[in-house]
């Protein structure tokens, strides 16, 4: 398994030092608030816990 690139790790340290209330770590999947879902009931971050998730970012064109 590949590890999270160094950029993300160092950015995380910088952010942690600058802001102790950082809501989201770099490289962490953001929440799906306000999303519109198809083919499934709306999924939440809790549904992703411990799971392998394959994401494909696409455009219809």
């Amino acid at each position, binding site marked *: 398994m590949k590890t999270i690139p160094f950029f*993300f790790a160092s950015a995380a340290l910088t952010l942690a030092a600058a802001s102790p209330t950082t809501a989201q770590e770099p490289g962490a999947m953001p929440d799906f608030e306000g999303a519109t879902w198809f*083919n499934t009931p709306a999924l939440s971050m809790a549904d992703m816990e411990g799971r392998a998730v394959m994401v494909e970012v696409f455009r219809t064109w």
Partner: protein
Amino acid sequence: MGQIPHLNSEWEKGNAKGLVVISVTDEPVELVEPWIAANNVTHPVVILSDKKLEDVIGVAGFPTSAVFLDKALQWKGHPSEAGGALGSARKAGRSDSMYPKKLGKVIKAWNGGERTKALSELYKSMPKLEGSDLDWAGRWDGFMKNESAKAFQRSSEMIEAGFWFRGLQLAQPYLGKDSEYPRVDETRSHLAMMQEEPGYAKEIKGGELYVEAQLLERQREYLEAFKVYKKIMKKSADTAIAGHAEAAAKSLIDGYKPGFKETCPKCDRRSHAACEKHRENVKL
């Protein structure tokens, strides 16, 4: 677009073993919904209007794939190269389905297009469920009812616009025997009224052919699609669908599409206009 069968297959084989597959876009519902239907997309698709997820992944082009494990990015790249990272994440990740096992019949019926059966299976299983299983059942209940409401609304709009067959196709999966979806009686009575209309049989037959022609267009078989549109104009003359077929055939002519060959370097790959050599001189 070539990735869809692969993603569908990963989802269908993998979701029972813990894998989640999601296609993500920021485009409007009006574009995404028909795209899902036209491409038979069965795995979860989400519209995220903010670009937070794309920023986390670092998307530079489309399509881009990413593999997450326990919500942390493990890999990103071209979809064709995701295999190794995905295999590792799956080995390390949970192996139980995200959906409860007890809703297996519901989900199987839904994914198999048996919409009426899916809801009745859900209601059969609900009294035996508790905790997070019951919570999931509630989520599926809301989702299925919302889908049926959308289908009935769209069906009504399609019929109003003169696409009777398409309207029928959209509503029918929710109208099986003993259907428990809301607005079933109302929808059935609208469809029954439509069947009383003169020219109903011609509209439906023409509509079936129209769907076939649209499929041919998607396969870039423009000449064959044109021939089907002409057939509709002849066989379903004086119907709403014949009017739509005429407009579609005219649009093909105006775009010089009949005769387009993907392998020809002179045919326009962007607009799909055929080059002079391949252009078919078709007329309405």
